[in-house]
């Protein structure tokens, strides 16, 4: 039995049989520890963020001049490092399916309508407090070929850099109460319930705009550059969010 290597106790293993695509893509050799040299203590985050524009409203960024179809939502939250320091002026890239569960992508064969007014990607920068804010439409669930009658829960893909190379994060944000999460091997590849919960946004009525859009809050924690061993998952209830 080859162990399923993982970088962090709360992170998914590379090999997770229920997610079939991992079987021929997960490395089988042990990961090699590296010291924290300047190469690891730095990272592209600051340089990339300085060169990137905001494009934070996915309901209007298609270029057609008409709004995207679907349930308009606002997603906001705070990005911090694992010491709780805000990650300011950081680039966030997002992409997602449209309201019907269809991506604007040549390989998406799902029989759901394309929305010509929704390209499904955008980006924003965190402010000096680490706060980001996106306007988009709620993505639909969609089927995939991993197993019989497999459906991905609604999700938005997020990509962030942070200050150092180990801070780099590509992940997915889920929506509260989605019954498909329990059935989803990608979501369930995260080994602990507490860590899975950190992938789920919370409905936030204070973010909801009257007669306009529902609000969700989702905070993100990026690993710092220090090679500090992390506390065990059993203690995660004591960890502040």
């Amino acid at each position, binding site marked *: 039995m080859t162990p399923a290597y*993982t970088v*962090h106790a709360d*992170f*998914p293993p*590379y090999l*997770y049989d229920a*997610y079939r*695509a*991992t079987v*021929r*893509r*997960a*490395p*089988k*050799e042990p*990961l*090699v*520890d*590296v*010291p924290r*040299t*300047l*190469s*690891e*203590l*730095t*990272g*592209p985050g*600051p*340089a*990339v963020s300085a060169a990137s524009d905001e494009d934070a409203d996915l309901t209007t960024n298609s270029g057609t001049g008409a709004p995207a179809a679907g349930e308009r939502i606002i997603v906001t939250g705070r990005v911090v490092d*694992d010491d709780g320091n805000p990650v300011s002026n950081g680039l966030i*890239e997002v*992409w997602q*399916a449209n309201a019907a569960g269809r991506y604007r*992508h040549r390989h*998406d064969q799902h029989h759901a309508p394309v929305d010509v007014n929704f390209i*499904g990607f955008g980006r924003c920068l965190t402010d000096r407090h680490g706060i980001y804010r996106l306007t988009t439409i709620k993505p639909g669930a969609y089927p995939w070929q991993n197993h019989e009658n497999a459906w991905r829960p609604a999700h938005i*893909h997020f*990509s962030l850099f942070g*200050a150092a*190379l*180990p801070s*780099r*994060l*590509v*992940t*997915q944000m889920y929506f509260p109460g989605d019954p498909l999460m329990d059935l989803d091997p*990608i*979501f369930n590849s995260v080994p602990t319930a*507490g860590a*899975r919960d*950190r992938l789920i946004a919370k409905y936030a009525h204070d973010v909801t705009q009257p007669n306009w859009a529902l609000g969700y809050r989702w905070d993100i*924690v*990026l690993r710092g550059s220090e*090679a*500090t061993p*992390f506390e065990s998952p059993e203690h*995660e209830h004591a*960890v502040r969010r």
Partner: protein
Amino acid sequence: MTRYAPTPPQTVGPFFHGGLLRDGMNIMVSPRSAGERMRIEGQVLDGDGVPVTDAVVELWQADARGRYMHPLAAEGSARGGTARVRLSAGSDESVPAADGTFTGFGRCGTDDDGRYWFETIRPGAVPGPTGNQAPHVNVAVFARGLLHHLSTRLYFEDGAGTEDDPVLQRVPQERRGTMIAHRTGSGSTPTYRFDIVLQGPNETVFFNL
């Protein structure tokens, strides 16, 4: 100090192209960038040797003088583990900050043959805890089926100090070759080939970063 629990990663999935890839992200040089031009290219392969056609490769490297475009580099020193890292160890204290026309970051999606390529410059030697590290490029790989991205380093077969590099020395000797890019072709611009094998007999060394 309270440490905050990190947000776990998830796969990029197959539909990342619009969100992550914009024209020119794999051309890291501008006409004004200082240094020797080079091309880095290769193929991403799975455990069956099948090209991975939906991967993203990201590079992070120092400029021709060995400087990263990063606030830590601008400050002139950084803490690395218990060792104090001197950015300009053994070199000229008056060298300028990182070349402002070269961010050191690149990104490329693999094509229908699993191939990627970058136009960049040859990185300088980067200071390490004890003397310089051999010139190298930090590489990250994202793909459908990778629940967390993979990290490795690319060294040059003809790079100064590659044999003695302190990070490469930590890798079992029989696996070091998977981190060495080989010069190919005879054009005026050097081309280095660096295949990334996710799994199997020639599996690339990946880091617990």
